[in-house]
C-alpha cells in the first residue's frame, strides 16, 4: 500500500505525458490534482494505521523488489513508513495538493499542451519526492534525490523560450550535481565501511560504536553527505542556484523551493541521526554553516528588489536555521521548523504569485504598493505568513524557531545563538519590508506597464483583483496552517505536551549517541521562557524597524541606502559570490575544456590519431603500389629470384 503513495502521482505524470496534450487545461489539471488528492488520502490512511500501532514498533516496511544482490551486499527497493516519513508524506501530499490546485488557476493563460507538460512535471516531482522520503535505504533515497533535481531543472526552465530560465535550470542542476558527487561518495563509503545502506540496519551497526573523537570515517561520511545536502538544500557554498530558480513559475517556487525539495537535505540528516550523532565534528560544521548561511542570506534578502528573490533568500536563511538545529543536536526542532516553514513559506510564495498575477507579471517591489485595497484576501493571508516567519508569538513560526534558538543556547553555543537571534531580527525586517512595500503606501508607477520578465503568456492580460477561488482557497488553508500548525509542538514550558517531539522521538533517537549533551537536554523552563521573551522582543524590534523605514518614512530607507552605498551595493549584488565562482571555477573549467580538451586532445590528438592511421595506410599503399610495374618479365624475374632464395634458405637450415 505504501507503493501507492508515490505511484499515484507517477501515474498522473504518465497520463499527462501520454494524452495530456490533447486534453483541455481543466482535464490535465484535474488529473494532476486528483492524483495528489488520492495520494493524500492514502497517506492519511497509512499514517492513521501507523499511529494505531504501539509507539515502539511504529515501522511499516514494504519491499517492492530486490534490487542489488551482490555477494554480501544486498539492497532492495524498499519503502518504509515511520513517524518521520509519515510527517513528510503528509507535508508533501498535503501542501503539494494545495499547490496543484493553485496552479490550475495560475497557469490558466498557458496553452493546453503547456499545461499538460507543467502538470506532468509537477506530478513527477511529487512522485520522486515521495520516493525520497519513503525510502528505506540510501539508494532509494538517492533515486528520489536525483529525481527531484531533475524535476527542479524541468520546472525552473519551464518557460524554455526565455534564456534566463534555461540558464537558471541548468545552474540548478549542475550545482546540485556537484553536491551529489559528494553524496555518492558518502554512500559508497557507507557501503564499504558498514556493508549496508538500509537506514535501520545502519543505525543498529553505528549505535554500537563510540562517537568519533577525531575526524574519523564516520565524520568523513557525514561530511560528504552534508555537502550533498548543501547542494540540494541551498546552503553555503552551493546555495547560488536557489535565487536564480525563481525564473520558474511561482507555484513551482512554492512547492519545490520552499516546502519540499530543499528540505530534503534536512530530512536526510534527520534520517541518519545515528551517523551524525556519532560525528560531533561534522555536526559542528553543519551548525556553523547553517548559522552563517542564515545570517548572510538574511542580509542579502534585506535589499533585493524582486519580490521572489526576497522570498528565495528567506528560504535559504530559514533552511540555515534548520541545519543549525540539526547541527546542535536538536533534531526534532529542525524537523519542526521544516514543517512550519513549509506552511508559511508556501503561503508567502503563493501570495506573491497572486500579487504577480494581479499585476500581470510585475515582480519589482519598487513598482508595487497599496495593493491592500485591491487584494484583501491576499493581503491578510500574506500578513499571516509574514507574522509566522517573523516569529510573532502564537503563530507556528514562533514555536519552531524558538525551539531551535533555545536548544542552541542550552546546548552551549552562545555565539551561534546570537547569530540566530540577529538573523531573526533581519527576518522580521525584510519580511515586513516586503509586506509594506507591496501592500501599503502608494504605487510608484501605473500598473499597466508590465515587466519584461513576466511569463510570455501573461503579458497582455492583467486582473487587478483578488485571485480566483482556486488560488485563494489554498492561500486561506495555508494561512490557517501557519497559525495553528505550530501547536502540536507546543513546548512544556508553556504548558503544552509537545506531541511532535514525542511522535518523532522513536525515529530521531534511533541509534543516537549517548553524549553528555543529549543527556543534558533536560527541560529548563525558566531559561526557555526567558529566551522566548528575548526572541519576541527581537521580532518586535524588527517589525518596528520595518514600520519606520518602509511604512512611515520611506525616504529614510533611501537615505540609509545611499549613506551606506558600498555596503548596499555589495548586498544587492549578493556579495558577488556568483561572479567569484564564475571567475575562480567556471571560466577556468571552460577554458580548459575548450582550449585544452577540445582543441588539443579531441581535434589534434584523437582525430589526428585516427586520421593519421588513415594517412599512414594511404601513404604506405602509395609506396607499395609501385611494385606493380606491369612488366611480366619483371614478375617472372622476381619469381625466379624468390624461388632461389627460399630454396637456399631452407637448404641452409
Amino acid at each position, binding site marked *: 500500500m505504501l507503493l501507492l503513495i508515490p505511484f499515484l502521482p507517477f501515474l498522473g505524470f504518465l497520463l499527462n505525458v501520454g494524452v495530456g496534450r490533447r486534453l483541455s487545461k481543466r482535464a490535465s489539471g484535474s488529473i494532476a490534482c486528483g492524483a495528489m488528492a488520492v495520494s493524500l488520502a492514502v497517506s492519511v490512511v497509512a499514517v492513521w494505521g501507523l499511529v494505531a500501532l504501539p509507539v515502539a514498533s511504529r515501522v511499516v516496511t514494504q519491499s517492492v523488489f530486490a534490487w542489488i544482490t551482490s555477494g554480501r551486499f544486498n539492497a532492495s527497493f524498499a519503502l518504509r513508513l515511520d513517524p518521520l516519513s509519515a510527517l513528510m508524506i503528509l507535508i508533501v501530499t498535503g501542501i503539494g495538493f494545495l499547490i496543484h490546485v493553485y496552479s490550475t488557476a495560475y497557469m490558466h493563460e498557458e496553452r493546453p499542451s503547456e499545461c499538460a507538460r507543467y502538470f506532468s512535471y509537477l506530478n513527477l516531482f511529487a512522485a520522486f519526492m515521495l520516493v525520497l522520503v519513503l525510502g528505506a535505504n540510501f539508494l532509494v533515497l538517492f533515486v528520489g534525490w536525483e529525481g527531484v533535481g531533475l524535476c527542479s531543472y524541468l520546472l525552473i526552465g519551464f518557460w524554455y523560450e526565455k534564456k534566463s530560465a534555461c540558464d537558471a535550470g541548468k545552474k540548478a542542476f549542475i550545482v546540485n550535481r556537484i553536491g551529489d558527487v559528494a553524496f555518492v561518495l558518502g554512500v559508497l563509503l557507507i557501503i564499504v565501511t558498514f556493508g549496508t545502506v538500509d537506514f535501520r540496519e545502519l543505525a543498529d551497526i553505528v549505535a554500537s560504536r563510540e562517537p568519533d573523537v577525531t575526524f574519523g570515517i564516520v565524520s568523513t561520511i557525514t561530511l560528504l553527505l552534508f555537502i550533498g545536502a548543501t547542494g540540494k538544500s541551498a546552503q553555503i557554498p552551493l546555495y547560488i542556484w536557489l535565487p536564480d530558480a525563481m525564473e520558474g513559475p511561482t507555484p513551482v517556487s512554492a512547492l519545490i523551493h520552499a516546502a519540499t525539495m530543499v528540505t530534503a537535505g534536512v530530512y536526510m540528516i534527520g534520517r541518519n541521526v545515528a551517523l551524525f550523532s556519532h560525528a560531533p565534528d561534522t555536526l559542528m560544521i553543519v551548525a556553523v554553516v547553517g548559522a552563517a548561511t542564515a545570517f548572510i542570506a538574511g542580509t542579502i534578502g534585506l535589499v533585493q528588489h524582486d519580490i521572489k528573490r526576497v522570498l528565495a533568500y528567506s528560504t535559504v536563511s530559514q533552511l540555515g536555521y534548520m541545519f543549525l538545529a540539526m547541527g546542535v543536536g536538536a533534531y526534532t526542532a529542525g524537523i519542526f521548523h521544516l514543517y512550519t516553514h513549509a506552511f508559511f513559506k508556501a503561503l508567502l510564495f503563493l501570495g506573491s504569485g497572486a500579487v504577480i498575477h494581479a499585476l500581470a507579471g510585475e515582480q519589482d517591489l519598487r513598482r508595487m504598493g497599496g495593493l491592500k485595497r485591491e487584494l484583501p484576501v491576499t493581503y491578510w493571508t500574506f500578513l499571516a505568513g509574514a507574522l509566522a516567519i517573523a516569529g510573532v508569538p502564537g503563530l507556528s513560526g514562533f514555536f519552531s524557531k524558538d525551539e531551535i534558538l533555545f536548544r542552541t543556547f542550552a546546548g552551549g553555543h552562545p555565539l551561534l545563538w546570537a547569530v540566530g537571534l540577529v538573523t531573526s531580527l533581519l527576518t522580521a525586517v525584510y519580511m515586513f519590508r516586503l509586506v509594506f512595500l507591496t501592500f501599503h503606501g502608494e504605487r510608484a508607477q501605473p500598473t499597466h506597464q508590465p515587466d519584461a520578465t513576466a511569463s510570455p503568456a501573461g503579458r497582455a492580460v492583467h486582473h487587478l483583483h483578488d485571485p480566483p477561488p482556486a488560488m485563494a482557497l489554498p492561500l486561506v488553508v495555508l494561512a490557517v496552517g501557519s497559525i495553528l500548525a505550530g501547536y502540536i509542538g507546543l513546548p512544556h514550558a508553556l504548558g503544552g505536551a509537545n506531541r511532535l517531539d514525542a511522535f518523532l522521538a522513536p525515529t530521531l533517537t534511533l541509534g543516537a549517541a549517548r553524549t553528555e549533551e543529549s543527556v543534558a537536554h533536560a527541560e529548563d523552563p525558566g531559561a526557555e521562557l526567558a529566551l522566548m521573551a528575548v526572541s519576541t522582543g527581537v521580532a518586535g524590534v524588527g517589525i518596528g524597524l520595518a514600520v519606520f523605514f518602509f511604512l512611515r518614512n520611506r525616504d529614510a530607507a533611501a537615505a540609509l541606502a545611499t549613506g551606506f552605498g558600498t555596503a548596499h551595493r555589495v548586498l544587492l549584488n549578493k556579495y558577488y559570490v556568483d561572479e567569484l565562482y564564475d571567475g575562480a571555477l567556471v571560466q577556468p573549467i571552460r577554458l580548459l575544456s575548450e582550449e585544452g580538451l577540445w582543441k588539443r586532445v579531441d581535434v589534434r590528438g584523437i582525430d589526428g590519431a585516427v586520421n593519421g592511421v588513415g594517412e599512414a595506410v594511404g601513404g604506405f599503399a602509395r609506396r607499395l603500389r609501385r611494385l606493380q610495374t606491369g*612488366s611480366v618479365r619483371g614478375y617472372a624475374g622476381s619469381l625466379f629470384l624468390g624461388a632461389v632464395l627460399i630454396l637456399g634458405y631452407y637448404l641452409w637450415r
Partner: protein
Amino acid sequence: MPSLNDYLVLSAILFSIGSAGVFLRRNLITILLSIEIMLNAVNLTFVAFGRSFGTVDGQIIVFFVMTVAAAEAAVGLAIVIALFRHRESLDPDSFMTLRW
C-alpha cells in the same frame, strides 16, 4: 648403370635452363617453350623416382603432367594470338598497361 642422382642432376640442369629462358627471353612464344622445358625436367624427375621406388606411380603422374602441359600450351598460345592481334607485338614489355 646411371644412378638416381645422375638423373636428378640432369633434370636440375634442364629445369634451370628453362627458368633462365623464361626470365631472359623477350619473345612470348619462346617463353612458353621454356616453360615446356621446365615441365619436361619435372617429368624426368618423376619417372626416375618412380623407377627407384619400383612403382608405376611416377609414370602415371607424368601422364597427368603431360595432359596439363598440353592444356596450358593450348590456352597460352590462344592468349598469345589474342595479344598479337591487339598489339602486333610479341614482346612482353609492350604489354605493360596493367600497372600502377
